[in-house]
């Protein structure tokens, strides 16, 4: 176990505390936030994103380091196109988020409750994660010479 591992563990822990304190691990509150046309709209969770972006954006702007403290290089995002996958994927994700009140982070954090709902949700999510790869493997198996 290295210091990098320790920081990864601490980052995950801090992230979970942030989700819990903010209200993101309460799906009813998430649904109330998304229910912009409803009679009891609760705008609180917009402030989670504001707080997080304010801190992280300022940090990124001030950071002048050419490489991370405990790694050889930054593992920066490598997709830049605004394409069908981006928009279609985001649209599907949103439908699922609104239907459950869970996005991936709060769902993983809530696993510790062993509530049946979150166990079922995460099972579906993991199937969704491996789905595209299973499909690619099946396609490759069908096309000769692949």
């Amino acid at each position: 176990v290295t210091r990098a591992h320790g920081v990864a563990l601490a980052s995950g822990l801090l992230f979970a505390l942030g989700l819990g304190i903010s209200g993101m691990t309460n799906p009813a509150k998430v649904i109330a936030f998304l229910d912009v046309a409803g009679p009891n709209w609760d705008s609180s969770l917009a402030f989670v994103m504001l707080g997080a972006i304010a801190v992280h954006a300022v940090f990124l702007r001030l950071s002048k380091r050419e490489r991370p403290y405990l790694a050889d290089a930054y593992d920066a995002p490598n997709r830049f196109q605004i394409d069908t996958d981006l928009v279609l994927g985001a649209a599907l994700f949103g439908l699922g988020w609104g239907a459950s009140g869970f996005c991936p982070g709060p769902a993983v954090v809530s696993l510790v409750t062993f509530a049946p709902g979150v166990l079922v949700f995460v099972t579906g999510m993991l199937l969704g994660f491996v789905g595209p790869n299973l499909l690619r493997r099946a396609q490759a198996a069908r096309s000769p010479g692949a």
Partner: protein
Amino acid sequence: MTEFSPGSAILGGVLIGLSASLFWAFNGKVAGISGIVAGLVAPLAAPAEFCPRADSRASTRSLRALFVLGLLLGGGLLWSLEPALLVPSPRPISLLLGAGFLVGIGTQLSGGCTSGHGVCGISRGALRSLVATGTFVATAALSVFLLRTLLGAGS
């Protein structure tokens, strides 16, 4: 009905922003939960050449595993100190399986979720993330609206 709670929302958001900054500054990685978790499980389903996130180096895998372990430890801490913060979903189990699948496949296609696109991507000024976030917030609101009006699912 839920109560307006901007203070705790901002405080939690600040912690999330600090976490993302820590993970980037020290490990050089984006704190996107769907990418981290999918990066652990998706390669199990197919060889690396079919995996969009081809980075399956042992070092990356162990960092992802520890980040997830941290999430679970944090969840355990919340659950033991303030269990009222971890609330079950009000939606029926049958709906949650399909919802989870949509969240899984959708975030894989678009390359991020609320954290990767919504927080990290927007913070770095990525137009892709802004488009993704606008899209998923819009369809999430639509999803909630349809379930409330058509099926009478309470929020």
